[in-house]
């Protein structure tokens, strides 16, 4: 290779290198420019997202306010419509008391019937609209499921006394008696289903059963069944039985009345309770509605559910005369009286009651109204007017008439009071106690003092072993010291003195347990742990402290009230 050739090659290579460098430079400028464009595109995208989010928020707020307006409207309408309807029905009752010829009576009966029908139609429609508008809220509280079933059984046993239909209940003993859920909704669901069965069952039985499907951590899955031996529903109708305004056919509507909304409402209520409903039916054999529903455990199961009947002792109240012709009612009231330790005599009708009153002195008389031979009004008038030892004894009417004019009829006949059937045991007990002037027994301390729901009552009970004085002192100590703890805590965090934070959390841990918040100790435990680390997580500490502050803010008024209540209680 000669020198000239070498120089040529070198020059070419140099030129090639320079060109490559120029191209690279151009490319990197291009890359930079594209990057800048990308960044601005990103920013505008973010802006767009922000704007859209804002728009969506506004739309949601609008929808929310529209929903609220609908809810308010429904609430108002509900009131506005029901008030005049109640007036119509009430006035009709009053008209029954005026001098009426048979033609007028018939007309008023029609008005009364139609008004009631209209009222229930309006109620159903409003209920359904309310549910659909989301205005019905599921509210959790403790209730006794078994008693709820019994109350429904009684209501319908009574309503069906003219038909050969037995209403039975079956309760799985593995189920907790006290559950947590919305008892009003549960009652409405079962009333609708049993009411439906009652309408379409001419003979046989209606069975309400509750059984355990499975337990989960916070409660149980429960299966509720309403089975009847009614006319049944054909397969096609079964598929839209839960639709609104759907009745199996028009004849049913004419014969049985109703709005066709009952089952639609029921389904909505079941779904609101996070449950499911199914129907199974055979024409001419009967229908079974099955509901599967989760019911939470009561969080105060250790607390005795106290009711009036527990606190009244009737065992020394003397003898009761029960005047009642219906066997079932005889049994029901008789069993209650036995349970309360009351001695009692039975009179199957008014005439026998008058006889008994001539022989024995009773402390109270429970009187049915409609009876063969002599009704309750006549018997009462006789007992009150005759010379006998029972002339001034309280007589309580037990009747299915809820109408005001029926009540006033009883009072006019000389009865002291009126109790509408079906009634709960506690209602009867209250009435008896009231008329015999028996006061509730002063219950013992542990039984009556109930803690605020924020505090874990069972923990407090086991911690203080029922020593309320000691508990009171501890609560006061807590109230007196918590603010200084809070201050120290705050300044330690501000000074980033993590050792101190950890130490305070450690001290606070048992103090929370002492006021029944042992489950809140976790906040302190995590703060204590975090503070000990070489490089504590600031976010975690701030969050823990925020939780602590929130808890104290929520707790202080509760504890102050608790202290006052304990003090009053101890007096």
């Amino acid at each position, binding site marked *: 290779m000669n020198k000239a*050739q070498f120089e040529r090659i070198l020059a*070419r290579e140099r*030129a090639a290198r320079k060109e*490559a460098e120029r191209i690279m430079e151009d490319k990197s400028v291009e890359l930079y420019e594209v990057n800048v464009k990308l960044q601005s595109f990103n920013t505008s995208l973010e802006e767009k997202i922000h704007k859209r989010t804002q728009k969506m928020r506004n739309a949601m707020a609008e929808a929310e306010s529209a929903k609220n307006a609908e809810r308010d409207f429904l609430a108002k309408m509900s009131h506005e419509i029901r008030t005049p309807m109640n007036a119509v029905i009430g006035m009709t009752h009053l008209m029954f008391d005026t001098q009426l010829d048979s033609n007028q009576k018939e007309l008023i009966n029609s008005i009364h019937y139609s008004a009631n029908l209209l009222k229930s139609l309006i109620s159903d429609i409003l209920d359904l609209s309310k549910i659909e508008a989301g205005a019905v809220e599921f509210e959790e509280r403790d209730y006794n499921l078994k008693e709820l079933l019994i109350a429904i059984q009684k209501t319908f046993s009574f309503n069906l006394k003219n038909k050969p239909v037995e209403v039975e209940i079956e309760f799985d003993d593995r189920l907790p008696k006290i559950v947590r859920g919305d008892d009003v909704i549960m009652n409405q669901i079962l009333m609708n289903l049993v009411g439906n069965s009652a309408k379409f069952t001419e003979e046989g039985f209606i069975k309400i059963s509750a059984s355990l499907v499975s337990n989960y951590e916070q409660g149980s899955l429960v299966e509720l069944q309403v089975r009847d031996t009614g006319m049944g529903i054909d397969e096609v109708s079964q598929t839209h039985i839960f639709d609104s305004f759907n009745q199996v056919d028009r004849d049913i509507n004419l014969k049985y009345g109703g709005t066709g909304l009952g089952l639609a409402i029921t389904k909505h209520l079941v779904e609101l309770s996070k449950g499911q409903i199914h129907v199974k039916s055979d024409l001419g054999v009967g229908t079974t509605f099955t509901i599967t529903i989760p019911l939470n455990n009561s969080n105060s199961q250790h607390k005795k559910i106290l009711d009036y009947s527990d606190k009244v002792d009737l065992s020394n109240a003397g003898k009761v005369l029960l005047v009642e012709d219906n066997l079932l009612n005889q049994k029901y009231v008789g069993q209650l009286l036995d349970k309360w330790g009351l001695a009692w005599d039975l009179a199957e009708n008014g005439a026998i009651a008058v006889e008994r009153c001539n022989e024995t002195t009773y402390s109270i008389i429970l009187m049915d109204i409609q009876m063969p031979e002599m009704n309750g009004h006549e018997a009462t008038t006789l007992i009150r007017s005759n010379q006998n030892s029972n002339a001034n004894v309280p007589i309580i009417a037990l009747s299915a008439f809820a109408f005001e004019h029926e009540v006033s009829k009883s009072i006019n006949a000389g009865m002291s009071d009126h109790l509408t059937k079906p009634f709960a045991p506690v209602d009867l007990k209250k009435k008896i106690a009231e008329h015999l002037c028996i006061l509730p027994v002063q219950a013992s301390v542990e039984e009556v003092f109930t803690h605020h729901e924020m505090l874990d009552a069972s923990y407090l009970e086991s911690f203080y072993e029922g020593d309320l004085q000691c508990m009171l002192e501890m609560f006061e100590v807590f109230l007196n010291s918590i603010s200084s703890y809070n201050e120290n805590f705050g300044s330690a965090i501000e000074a980033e003195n993590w050792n101190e934070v950890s130490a305070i959390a450690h001290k606070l841990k048992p103090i929370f347990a002492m006021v029944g918040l042992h489950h809140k100790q976790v906040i302190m435990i995590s703060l204590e742990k975090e503070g000990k680390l070489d490089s504590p997580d600031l976010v975690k500490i701030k969050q823990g402290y925020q939780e602590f502050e929130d808890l104290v803010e929520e707790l202080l008024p509760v504890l102050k009230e608790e202290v006052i209540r304990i003090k009053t209680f101890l007096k």
Partner: protein
Amino acid sequence: MKGVVFTEFVEMVEKKFGHDVADKLLSIPDLESNGVFTAIGTYSHHDMFKLVAGLSELTKISVQDLFRAYGKTIFLTFTRMFPVFFKEVDDSLVFLEALENRIHAEVKKLNPDAELPTFKTTRLSDNKLQMIYISERRMSDFALGLMEGCSDYFNQNLEIQRHNLKSDGSEVKFEITRN
């Protein structure tokens, strides 16, 4: 035409025919690039024709044969430079079939101004592929060389029949049979 085609060509000439021949070619006076090429640049295809014509004159090997031989060589260079296109492909016909949609598409993404030939590909049977080469550059010899390089790379015996669809060679049908 991409610079890599030129730099690889110069390297091949240096290796096969020596520095003197390479220097003579790059000194051809009317080269648009003045004989200066970098792999990342882009140059006129006229320069390629001038270089190949020059080489043909110096070596007495026909232009067609030179293009074909160069195509065969540069295919192996491509397999080393762009291994991503050869991963997960183990058949020459599969590779050639995907050329237009896969490789040329990627080249276009990186070099929007690259001028590439068009291949219309039809699979005639399991072992037979038809490719129609369309390009105003009329470099079907180079294409044929590339196909032969492909055959070597996949170690498969390809029988390639060529038929001009246009007399000027701007549209050429290849029928490739894998034996």
